[in-house]
């Protein structure tokens, strides 16, 4: 890294401090990498032995040191040498043979990120934007998006409705559409608890599981149809939300989060262990597919006395008809959740949720019964989770406890937080990022969690309130102003 040696500048550079900072980062990297990377357990002749990987630790520490040095120098107003050096590092890492693939990836990506950062700093002539300025710029983007979303919203809905009939929409596309819509629906459901009421729920997937198993079991034991089970599944999920809510909602903040986390795991473990009833880890298969509103089935050769969809409409049979029907089903369910939320936000209970998120002590002082309000949020969100769950069951035809692990809760929560707490459009954007992108780059799916983690860290650093965090008031006394005007005004005031 000779290229970043301090030159003669007007602005003095405290090289000692910069080196110290980098060394500290390297030390932390050493402490973390030593047990995580340096000592790896391997299975030799069915015995676990520890294999040292100290070369990788050393490389990791050096990379962290250089990376931090680059960041620090950029900050101190020396972006040009950093840009050159980091590009050199990234390029050489790309062509040189490094011991392992992840190492190569980290070196290339790290070099590229630092180069990007340095390039940005060069372009804007001062090394970093102040945090407030950056925040303001992002707010402006958020506000512009909010304004645009009045247009984009309907366009997106029209697009979603038309999607199955667009020329490029083959079975895979519609399948991805179903997947995305499922997560959007879950995100919108969880948004009620997390985004509006401000309760950190780490076990939302439990209600998804309750919904899925409700349908699967009711169908298995009583032969109930999907259309009967859908409301029942919502009801049961909502009841389980109430049951959990009663003891738990008195807890605050972190305690609440931990108990919901426990509840999510509890449901999964019950599902695994209650073998006779739930099928345990084998799950339940042969879950009936939905009929066309109980009128007709999606089968080529219906049993006698049963109408089939293609006969009903007099079209050729095609297996995609059911997929498209499922697509519209989840689209309607998701939009229902969206409209419900938009509507309830303007009602006393919705306003109380947001007030609770802002300041629960003040809520109490105004005579609001916090427990009831939270219970309502919790059970309504649980109901939507239950709907989504029974949809999932009927779509897959097979469910097992594996589908309802903590990581699902984490992904749904990430969607809500990433999108901007309480923002409906934010959930859609975040779902496209979190679910859509990895689906498109399937080959890279092993790096999915890595990218996910990096993404979350970056968001927390740059945009702690989420991508689209603009909030429109639910009621106005004066004429409506666009989000951009509001943003402009609040900047003028500041």
């Amino acid at each position, binding site marked *: 890294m000779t290229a970043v040696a301090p030159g003669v500048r007007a602005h003095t550079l405290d090289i000692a401090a910069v080196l110290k900072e980098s060394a500290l980062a390297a030390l932390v990297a050493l402490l973390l990498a030593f047990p995580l990377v340096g000592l790896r357990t391997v299975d030799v002749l069915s015995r676990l032995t520890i294999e040292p990987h100290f070369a990788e630790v050393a490389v990791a520490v050096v990379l962290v040191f250089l990376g931090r040095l680059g960041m620090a120098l950029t900050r101190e107003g020396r972006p040009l040498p950093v840009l050159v050096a980091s590009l050199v590092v990234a390029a050489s890492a790309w062509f040189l043979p490094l011991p392992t693939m992840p190492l190569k990836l980290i070196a290339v990506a790290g070099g590229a990120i630092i180069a990007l950062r340095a390039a940005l700093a060069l372009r804007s002539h001062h090394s970093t934007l102040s945090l407030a300025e950056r925040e303001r710029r992002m707010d402006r983007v958020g506000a512009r998006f909010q304004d645009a979303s009045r247009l984009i919203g309907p366009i997106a809905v029209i697009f979603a409705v038309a999607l199955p009939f667009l020329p490029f929409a083959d079975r895979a596309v519609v399948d991805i559409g179903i997947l995305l819509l499922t997560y959007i629906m879950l995100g919108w459901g969880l948004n009620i608890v997390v985004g509006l009421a401000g309760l950190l729920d780490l076990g939302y997937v439990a209600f998804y599981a309750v919904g899925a198993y409700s349908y699967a079991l009711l169908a298995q034991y009583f032969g109930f149809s999907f259309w009967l089970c859908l409301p029942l599944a919502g009801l049961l999920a909502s009841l389980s939300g109430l049951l959990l809510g009663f003891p738990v909602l008195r807890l605050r903040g972190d305690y609440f989060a931990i108990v919901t986390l426990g509840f999510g795991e509890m449901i999964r473990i019950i599902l695994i262990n209650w073998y006779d009833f739930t099928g345990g880890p084998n799950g339940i298969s042969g879950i009936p597919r939905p009929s066309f509103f109980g009128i007709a089935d999606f089968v080529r050769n219906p049993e006698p006395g049963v109408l089939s969809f293609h006969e009903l409409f007099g079209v050729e049979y095609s297996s995609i008809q059911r997929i498209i029907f499922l697509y519209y089903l989840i689209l309607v369910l998701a939009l229902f959740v969206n409209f419900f939320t938009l*509507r309830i936000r303007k009602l006393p209970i919705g306003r109380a949720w947001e007030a609770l998120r802002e300041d629960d*002590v*003040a809520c109490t002082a105004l*005579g609001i019964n916090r427990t009831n309000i939270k219970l309502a949020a919790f059970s309504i969100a649980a109901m939507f989770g239950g709907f989504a769950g029974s949809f999932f069951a009927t779509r897959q035809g097979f469910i097992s406890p594996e589908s309802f692990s903590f990581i699902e809760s984490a992904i749904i929560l990430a969607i809500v937080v990433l999108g901007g707490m309480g923002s409906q459009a934010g959930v859609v954007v975040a779902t496209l990022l979190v679910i859509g992108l990895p689906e498109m780059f399937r080959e890279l799916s092993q790096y999915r969690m890595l990218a996910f983690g990096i993404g979350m860290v970056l968001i927390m650093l740059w945009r702690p309130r989420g991508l689209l965090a603009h909030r429109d008031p*639910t*009621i106005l006394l004066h004429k409506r102003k666009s989000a951009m005007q509001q943003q402009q005004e609040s900047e003028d005031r500041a």
Partner: protein
Amino acid sequence: MTVPPKPTPLLEVEHLTMRFGGLIAVSEVSFTAMDREITAIIGPNGAGKTTVFNCLTGFYTPTVGRLTMHRKPPKTPLYLERLEAYRIAHKARVARTFQNIRLFSGMSVLENMIVAQHNKLMRASGFSLAGLFGLPVYRRAERAAVDLARYWLDRVNLIDVADWQAGNLPYGAQRRLEIARAMCTEPALLCLDEPAAGLNPRESAELSDLLTFIRDEHKIGVLLIEHDMSVVMTISDHVVVLEYGRKISDGTPAEVRVDPAVIRAYLGEEEEETPPEAVQRLAGGA
């Protein structure tokens, strides 16, 4: 001209004691706040004033004591020490503000005022069902709520900024909004914890006007913790003085001002200042 009816007791505090472990924050405090009067609670920092408020409004459960809130007959009195905090606001109609302002700062000014009318609107919206379907009952109730909000925003001069985010208001405006929001709950007793803190003299004078307006026009009781003697001495009907958790004086502003115990307490607190000045401040408010 009719003679205004004699004020009746609104809140009776008897033997209120609040202990935190070994610390006795409030000890054997008794006083009565009258309806349609402004009762001030003054005293040096740490005297236990805020603790008294927290006991009254249910945020703390008093160690000992009876807190009786009288209501218009035929309604029976309520014992506040037995009620949950939200019920004290809802049923006993005691509203409060906080020493460190607590607004819903991400919500608009108007929304703050509407949230304060939650219970009323909740009933009108049929616990949200009528609201979900947009029935006229609810729309009417919401319009009435906005009218009430408009009335108070007008009073505290915030009507122009009604659609601002509450957190973006300047400090003085936030204080006024908190009072207006408390009034939206249509309280029988309004408890204000240092509402003049951080206000400039003009704003303090406006505050005095607002409080007398609330007392005289809305005919409710006001309980006021305040350090600003120019406010306390001009508008209160009755002053209670606390020191180290004990009540050391109780009476009209004129009586309290000349009470040797009070003068001693205030001299003791402000030793660094020249004592005569402190006395003057205490005396010169009126």
